[in-house]
């Protein structure tokens, strides 16, 4: 198991290297001079030259890349052009908001999808199955950013019951401890801030989670359907167990493996989905930061963000692989 993970971990290094090269080349193939964009139109050649020198943009491309690699290895992606702060610091200040959003989205999705999937799968072709299947299909077909817009329109615009932008109302949140607002307000026993944070996060998390909800529901349903035919389920029934116990204790536990895979795979989709949902809700996370950075042609920040996202995605896949063995003792690496 450990040696397997080490091998997998070593395997990701060349992948990350190639990705960094790809991103680096892509960024430098782009039209438009970042120096002009940052300094504005009213600059003279000397100023441009000075700025290029300071940011190292006048050196040959391969030297720029090697320098970038050298510092990227220790998590240093240079200074953001736009924020004039170290890239990692900018990203780290925004990351908790994205993680918090993703976690709440996953919670919403799993809490709704798994019972619904189990319910639908254990009663094939019943009305609840039909309802669940339709629901699942709607979930996977829904463009999350459109759902985001529609949620804003309905719950915030017309009914006016929920806030539509940002993470908290100004002045309500206490001092930041962990950077996770909900966690912070629980730690500080600031219930008003907790409620405020929850009302802010609910709509974006729902919009972000809807695709995962649909997929999870469908996967759970089909996994349940498959397990329902196993011999040990017959045995459980034959020894006179209640159907409820059969489903939840014998079927669901064995159907969980594909479900976990999908949660893992969908985490990546969730990460990139957050880019667009965060933009709609003005959520101050790393996703909306990416769009800002792209529009400003902030090379170091974009590179840092893309690398962060990719590294997160690769490690999630790795963790999921490791989790299989925990969930299913039959799997040995």
């Amino acid at each position, binding site marked *: 198991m450990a040696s397997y993970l080490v091998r997998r971990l070593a395997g*990701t290094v060349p*992948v*990350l290297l*190639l*990705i960094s090269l*790809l*991103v680096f080349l*892509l*960024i430098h*193939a*782009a*039209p438009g001079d970042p120096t002009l964009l940052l300094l504005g139109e009213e600059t003279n050649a000397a100023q441009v030259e000075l700025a290029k020198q300071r940011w190292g943009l006048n050196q040959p491309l391969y030297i720029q890349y090697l320098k970038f690699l050298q510092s990227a290895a220790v998590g240093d992606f240079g200074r953001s052009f736009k924020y004039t702060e170290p890239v990692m610091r900018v990203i780290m200040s925004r990351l908790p908001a994205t993680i918090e959003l993703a976690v709440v989205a996953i919670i919403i999705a799993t809490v709704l999808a798994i019972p619904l999937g189990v319910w639908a799968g254990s009663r*094939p*072709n019943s009305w609840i199955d039909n309802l669940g*299947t339709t629901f*699942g*299909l*709607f979930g*996977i*077909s*829904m*463009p999350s*950013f*459109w759902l985001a*817009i*529609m949620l*804003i*329109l309905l719950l915030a*615009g017309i009914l006016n019951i929920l806030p539509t932008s940002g993470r908290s109302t100004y002045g309500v949140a206490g001092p930041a401890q962990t950077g996770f607002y909900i966690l912070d307000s629980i730690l500080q026993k600031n219930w008003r801030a907790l409620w405020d944070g929850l009302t802010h996060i609910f709509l974006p998390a729902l919009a972000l989670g809807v*695709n995962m909800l649909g*997929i999870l529901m*469908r*996967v759970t*349903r*089909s*996994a349940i*359907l*498959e397990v329902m*035919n196993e011999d040990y389920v017959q045995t459980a029934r034959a020894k006179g167990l209640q159907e409820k116990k059969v489903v939840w204790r014998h079927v669901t536990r064995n159907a969980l493996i*594909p479900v976990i*895979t*999908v949660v893992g*795979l*969908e985490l*990546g*989709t969730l*990460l*990139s*989905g957050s*880019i*667009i949902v965060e*933009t*709609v809700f003005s959520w101050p996370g790393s996703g909306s930061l990416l769009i800002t950075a*792209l529009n400003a042609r902030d090379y170091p920040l*974009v590179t840092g963000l*893309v690398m962060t996202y*990719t590294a*997160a*995605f*690769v490690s999630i896949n790795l963790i999921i692989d490791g989790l299989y063995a925990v969930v299913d003792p039959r799997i040995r690496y």
Partner: protein
Amino acid sequence: MRSLTLESATEERPAAQERRLPRLHVKAFTGGAIVLVFILAGIFGPGLAPADPNKQELTAMLKAPQGIGSAHALGTDNLGRDILSRVIHGSRVSLMVAFAVVFVSGFIGISLGAISGYFGGKIDFTIQKLVEVVWAFPPLLLGITIMAFLGQGLFNLILALVAQRWIPYCRVVRGQTLSLRSRDFVTAAQCLGATHRQIITRHVIPNLIQTSLVIGTFAMASSIIAEASLSFLGVGVPPEIPTWGTMLADARIYISTAWWLPLFPGLCIFITVLGINLLGDALRDLLDPRLKRTGTGI
């Protein structure tokens, strides 16, 4: 686009099996009908649309939908452009982009997958490393990055969407080719002196078409959503071309004042994707129930 499995009615009980076929038909029929309507709207769009989608009528800005038979059945946008006409024209561009993406990525993915599986060895290793690298990007992120740096435009957009969408084809096709390679008809063809190229194009690829068709359906659904997402973020189709995504982008600042601006283009995306997914589900159940384990989904 990364779901591992997609549900299907696999229950083996006789009662369930009896009802399985009609259900399949309902799915296929509903999905097919929806897709057909939008394809027809796309083809005959210019003739069907009541007005020029880009004609600005500044005296009729932000008019609410007035119902069938009136001048602006679905209302007008912030520049007084007829929303019904824009939605119809939008289906043309959105579907064209999606079809192009599906065909190009299908071509690349099937070719590379077949080559990878057929030859094995170093060729296989190289192609699979490429797959691994491209697949290591979170979905959409690669598209956004490519678009942001290459600039807006239909060609770049198709490129950005193809960038990751050939992977599911490549993976599944490689797996199938591995098993096809050792089948008797391939050996027979080799004995008859067929070249590798002949074997791949005449004997291997025809056996991969059904599977690829199912992958293609789901790739189509994800392309439509991805195109809309990129256009919405302002890195997709240039803003002057009406697509469902650009319409949603235009609608963003009017969310609270004019509900019909974001409603109709979004509804079109949702219904089209729903239809395609229904069709894909039905196709997969019909052609190859095994596919549900191969990661071809949304």
